[in-house]
């Protein structure tokens, strides 16, 4: 299925490492939240790492990315340092948003990661506006926006699908369909099985892909990005995935039964990727263990760094309000 031969094994190993980084990062996020290192909650993308990594691999560094509160993986995949992101989760001065944003508001404009958003679908038209700016500037850059399947019921998303189709902008909207919106399963919240069907109604390209295989995700994303880059308009790419055992690190959105809660373990993209790497690409499993250990160490370092980072000066509480 995937164009195996075209991607060097080194690259695939880098993907594996990045997925492992995200996993290790998210485990630390959950752990440090539960330890009380920060307040509120945090929304792990555990079991959705293949989407973050597979999509990011199809982008140029100057392509712009917008994501949601479940966007730590997208931030890391776009090149943000774990230290800066973990410090942001802990609301520290060295956070990528100087500790003002926290877990749901990550941003690094220098990396063209334009922020994660906590209002469902509100970032979709904003991303589209940036895509329109690309089109006006003829700069060949593509804008990518991620959202969950629950958020696809929002007017801001639907209005944008229509306008993206009308104006043929270089935009790829990636829907991570993990089957749940907090406690509401997709069959209760959505009228269609495949969210990408919404695209058709507007004359927009829609695609779906198994979101737990980074090679498949990457291939689909490449197609969508190529369309956008060559001026053939926007795509809604649906990645079918599975959510981690709950909506966020507090009990919110716990599944009804234990079985459902643990479904992600069988869908887990990391062992799935390992199987392909070992079976199809002849990678030695020991190498993967090493990459995991490296990822873990990086995450550990990031956490230590974040803990040591100072809290923002109270005198600066009102900073950054106006340009």
């Amino acid at each position, binding site marked *: 299925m995937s164009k195996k031969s075209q991607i060097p094994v080194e690259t695939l190993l880098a993907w594996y490492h990045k997925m492992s980084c995200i996993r290790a990062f998210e485990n630390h996020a959950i752990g440090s939240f539960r330890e009380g290192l*920060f*307040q*509120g*909650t945090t929304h792990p993308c555990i079991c959705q790492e293949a989407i973050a990594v597979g999509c990011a691999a199809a982008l140029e560094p100057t392509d712009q990315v917008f994501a949601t509160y479940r966007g730590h993986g997208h931030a890391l995949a776009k090149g943000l340092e774990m230290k800066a992101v973990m410090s942001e989760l*802990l*609301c*520290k001065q060295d956070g990528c948003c100087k*500790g*003002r*944003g*926290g877990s*749901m*508001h990550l941003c690094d404009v220098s990396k063209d990661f334009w922020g994660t*958003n*906590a*209002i*469902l679908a509100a970032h979709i038209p904003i991303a589209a506006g940036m895509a329109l700016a690309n089109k006006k500037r003829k700069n060949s850059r593509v804008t990518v926006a991620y959202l969950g399947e*629950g*958020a696809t*019921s*929002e*007017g801001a998303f639907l209005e944008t699908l229509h306008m993206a189709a009308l104006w043929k902008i270089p935009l790829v909207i990636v829907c991570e369909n993990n089957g749940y*919106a*907090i*406690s*509401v399963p997709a069959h*209760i*919240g*959505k009228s269609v099985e495949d969210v990408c069907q919404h695209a058709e109604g507007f004359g927009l390209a829609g695609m779906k892909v198994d979101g737990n295989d980074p090679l498949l995700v990457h291939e689909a994303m490449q197609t969508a990005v190529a369309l956008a880059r060559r001026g053939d308009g926007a795509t809604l790419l649906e990645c079918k995935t599975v959510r981690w055992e709950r909506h966020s690190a507090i009990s*919110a*959105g716990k599944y*009804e039964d234990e079985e459902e809660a643990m479904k992600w373990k069988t869908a887990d993209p990391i062992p799935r990727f390992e199987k392909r790497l070992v079976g199809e690409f002849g990678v030695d499993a020991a190498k993967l263990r090493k990459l995991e250990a490296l990822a873990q160490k990086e995450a550990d370092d990031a956490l230590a760094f974040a803990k040591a980072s100072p*809290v*923002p000066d*109270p005198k*600066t*509480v*009102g900073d950054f*309000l106006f340009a």
Partner: protein
Amino acid sequence: MSHRKLSMAEAINEALRHEMRRNPDITLLGQDIGPYGGTFGVYRGLYDEFGAERVTDGPVAEAATTGFGIGLAMAGMPTVVEIEFIDFITLASDAIVNQAAKMRFTMGGQVSVPLVVRTPIVNRLGLGAQHSQSLEAWFMHIPGLRVVVPSNAADAKGLMLTALRDGNPVLYIEHVRLYGAKGEVPEADEPIPFGRLRVAREGRHVTLATYSGMVRPCLEAAEELAAEGVDCEVLDLRTLAPLDREGLVNSVIKTGRLVVAHEASKTGGAGAEIAQSAQEGAFDFLEAPILRVAAADHPAPMGTLQDFAFPNKDNVIAAVREVMA
């Protein structure tokens, strides 16, 4: 009948359950209100008792969901729509402001809109700028709406009963930090009328007018100030629309001083209206400027900075000392 201790979440739940048993037309719409029982547990058990037909989880689409609620309400089925955080009420604001609030007036009285929009204020919980606002002032400004801001379990129950029977669009604003607070709640069916404030503490020297999340800090401030010989009267306004101007003005006439406290950002907050209403009615009796205690005029930051953005008991004490000086 007897009283028991209930949390505010339980009290609201009890009012909903009670009224849903009496009135089979009442429907609840929202997200996570079904089997899950509500993001903050307010709906616990209602799905089991009334089923998906009456406790209906739907798509995340606040604008249309509120519109659906209006349509059900106009058809004679009082409807409770939940907006998970008051910050998201922007999305429902057209339905509330341009539809629900104006429908009856514009149609010359032919329709009524028994819609209750339930929504919590959620601040200082580390959820950031998009999950920390207090937008009650917006709706106080829109004629045709009721705005309810309970601070305790008993009021929450009595005001919810009134809301469900009022026949008009009601914005019922809860507060996450109050959900767990327990208090005596009457078992009886005792609706509390809109537009009547509650004197939470009587006093002679200064009036503290407040509501929702600032009632407790004001009461605590009053206790501390009592030790200094300053006797505060604490008014829990309970509803902002209608606003009990008479009760407010009478208290200020008695004390001659007023501090208004709320968690919304200061500029353009409900405090401005409360203060100005008091000033209009009690000007001749004022012995000091009316002061406001409110959140800072910038978005809510995260982490340790939060403490410097939102008002607390100490800010109230400082303001009272200033007006007593």
